[in-house]
C-alpha cells in the first residue's frame, strides 16, 4: 500500500516535470517564432525560461530540494554555479571589452 503511494507520488513528480519542461520549452520557441518583443527583451525572456526549466529539471527529475538531507548536494550545485558564474561572466567581460577596444 505504502509502496504504491510512494510510487504514485514519484510518478506524479516526473509527470509534472515533463509538463513543465514542455510548457517552458514551448514558450521559448513560441517567443522566437512570433517575436512579440524586441530582440534584447526576447533574449532576457528566453534566459529566464531556461533558468526556470533547469530548476524544474533539478527539482522533478533529480530530486534536489531544500530538505536537510539534500542540502549538501545543493551546496555542491550552488558552488559549481558560483564558479561557472565567475568564469563565464569574467571571460565575457574581458573578451567583449577587448573586442570593443579593437574596433
Amino acid at each position, binding site marked *: 500500500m505504502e509502496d504504491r503511494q510512494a510510487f504514485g507520488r514519484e510518478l506524479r513528480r516526473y509527470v509534472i516535470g515533463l509538463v513543465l519542461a514542455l510548457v517552458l520549452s514551448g514558450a521559448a520557441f513560441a517567443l522566437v517564432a512570433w517575436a512579440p518583443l524586441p530582440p534584447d527583451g526576447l533574449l532576457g525572456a528566453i534566459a529566464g525560461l531556461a533558468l526556470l526549466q533547469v530548476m524544474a529539471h533539478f527539482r522533478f527529475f533529480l530530486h534536489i530540494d531544500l530538505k536537510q538531507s539534500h542540502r549538501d548536494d545543493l551546496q555542491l550545485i550552488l558552488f559549481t554555479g558560483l564558479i561557472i558564474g*565567475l*568564469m563565464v561572466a*569574467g*571571460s565575457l567581460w574581458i573578451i567583449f571589452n577587448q573586442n570593443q577596444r579593437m574596433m
Partner: protein
Amino acid sequence: MGIEASVSPWLGKLSLSALPTDSVVAMGAALIAVLGALGTAGYITWKGKWHYLWREWFTSVDHKRIGIMYVVLALVMLARAVIEALVMRLQQADAVNQSGFISAEHFGQLFSTHGSIMIFFMAMPFLTGIINYVMPLQIGARDVSFPALNSISLALTAAGAALVMISLILAPFSTGGWSGYAPFTELSFSPGVGVDYWIWAVTLGSIGSTLTGINLAVTLYKQRAPGMDLMRLPLFCWTALCTSILMIFAMPALTVATALLALDRYLGMHFFTNDGGGNMMLYANLFWLFGHPEVYIVVLPSFGVFSELFSTFSAKQLYGYTSLVVATLTIAVLSFTVWLHHFFTMGQSAHINAVFGIATMLIGIPTGVKIYDWIFTMFRGQVRFPTPLLWGLAFLVTFVIGGLTGILLAIPPVDFLVHNTTFLVAHFHNMLIPGTLFGMIAAYQFWFPKAFGFRLEERWGKLAFGCWVLGFYLAFMPLYVLGLEGMPRRSAQVFDPSFRPWLLVAAGGAVLITLGLAALVLQLAVSIRHRDRNRVPVGDPWDGRSLEWACSAPPPKYNFARIPQVDARDAFWAMKQSGTAYVPPPRYDAIALPQSSAIGPVLGGLGLAAAFGLVWHIWWMAGLGVLGSIGAVIAWTFVPRPERTLSAEQVARTEARWHAAIAEATPASRDAEHATSNRGLAQVGA
C-alpha cells in the same frame, strides 16, 4: 629536427629524421634517456623482478603503493627538469653577444619542457603522491574511495610523462612554453609535431588529475573515521580537500583550451587563429582560468605539510586552527577570481585590470594569516630543528619575499614594466620553489620513515638543504635585478654585457641546486645502506600528532586493524597523552581489501598509444588507443571487482608483530630523535 615531406599510413609523419641528430647536446640527452630506460629495464630483468613489480606495484590499488610510485615519478622528472634548467642557465651566462652552445630552437624546447615537466609531471605527481599516501592514514581510513580509479590516474600521468621523455628521442617538443600560447602554437607558426606532443602529454596528465581530484574529495567527505568532524581534520587534510576542489573545477578549463587548440591544428578550425575569425586572446583567457587555480593546487598541499611540520616540531598544537581553515578556504575560492593578472598587458581596459589587480592583492591576506599562524605556533613551543623543519623555515622567509614581489606585480602599471622579463621569472620561481618544492621535499623527508620503516640520514639531508637554499637565492635573486634592467624572459642570447655578472651568479646557483639534488640522491643511497640501524618499526619517530603515526612503519596493508574513534584534534597526540595509543583491541575482525587490477596499466598503455599516434598522425594507432581504452573500460565493468579478505588470525599475527616491536622499544625523547636507539616509540610528556 627536420620537417616531414612524406606521410605514410603506417608511420604517419614519423621517420628517422625525428632523431635529433643536428645537436650534440640533444643527442646526448636522447642517449641518456635511452640508456636510462634500458638500464632500468635491464636491472629489473637481471634481478628477475618483473613479475613482482607487476603484481605488487603496477597493478596495486593500494593508496600507499600508488603514492610512492607518484613520488618516484616526480623525483625522476625533477632530475630531468633541473638539468634542463642548468643547461639554460649555462647557455645564458655564455651567450652574451655570442651564440652560446644551444640553438634558439633548442632553447625554446628546453624552457617548454622545463616548465611543462615541473608543473605537470613533477609538482602534480609529487603532491598527488604525498596526499595519496598520507591523507587516508590521517583520516583513519583504509584507502581512498575509488582505489582502481587511483591506479588509472597514476597510469595516465605516467603515460604523459613517458610521452615527454619520448620527445627527447623522437624530437622536437614544443617551443611554445608550458602555457602554449596561440597563435604561436597554431599550425601556421608551429607546423611540426612539437605542440602536439605538448597538447597530448598535458591532456593525459589533466585527465589523471581530474580523476584524482574527484577521488580525494569524495574520500575526505565520506571516508573519515567516526568522530573525525571536519573541524578535527589535520590541516594537511584541509589543504588536500581544497586542492582537490581546485583540481575538479580548474582542470576543465585546460581541457577546453588544449582541445580547441587541437581542433585548430588537426581539423583547421578557427578558435585561436590569426585569420578566419579566430580570437587568440581567448586562448590566454581560457588557459589562465586553469593556470591560476593550478598554482594554488601546487602550493596548498605544501602549506598543509608545513602546518604539520611546525606543530610537530614545536611539540605544540597549531596556533589558530580555525583561522588556518578559513584562510585555506578563502584562498581556494579567491583563486578563481584573479586569473587576469597573468595577462594585464593583453589589451583590456585599465578598469578591468584594476579590478583583478585588487583581487590579486586580496589573496595575499589569507596567506599572510597563515604565515603568522605558523610563526605563533613555534612561539613558546619546544622547537627542534630536524631537516624537515629547516625546509619550513627557509620557506617562511623565501616565500614571503616572493609574495611581496607578487604584490608589486599585482599593480598593473608595474606589471606593464616587468611583464615577460626575468623579474616575472624570479617571482614565480620564488613562489614555486619554496612554496611547492621545499614543501614536497620536506614531506618526503618527514614521511619517508613511515613509508619505508627506516629514517633518512640527517647529515646528507642538511647538506642538500643548504645547497638548495643557497642555490635558490644565487640563481634567482639576480633575475629580479636583470628583469628591472629590462632582460626579457626565455632569451637564448643576451646582448647587454652588463647582464653577464648576474647571469654568472645565477648559473652558479643552478650548479648548487643540481648538487643539492645529487645530495638528496646520495642521502637516499646512504640511508638504504644504513637502514638496519635506523629502523623505526613502532612507527612514530617524530613524536607525531596525527593518526598516520598510530600504526607501524611501514604500515600494514589495511592501515588500521580497527578504525580509530576520534575524540579531538591532533587525534594521535590525544591518544598518547591519555595512554590509549598502543592498547590492542579486545579482538580482531577480518578485513576485506580490494584486489589488484590491471586496468590502470592497460589504460596507461592505451593512452600512451593514442597520444603517440595523434602526435605523429599515425591514425591507426590513435584509433586503436582511443577505441581500445573505451573497450577496456566497458570490459572491465563486466568483471566483478575482486576483494581479498584477511582473516582475523592474519590480522592478529601482523598486529602481534607490531606490538612485540613496541614492547621491545625504549621510548625515545625528542632530543634522541636522530639516535639509532629511536625505534619509533616516542616518550610521552617529554
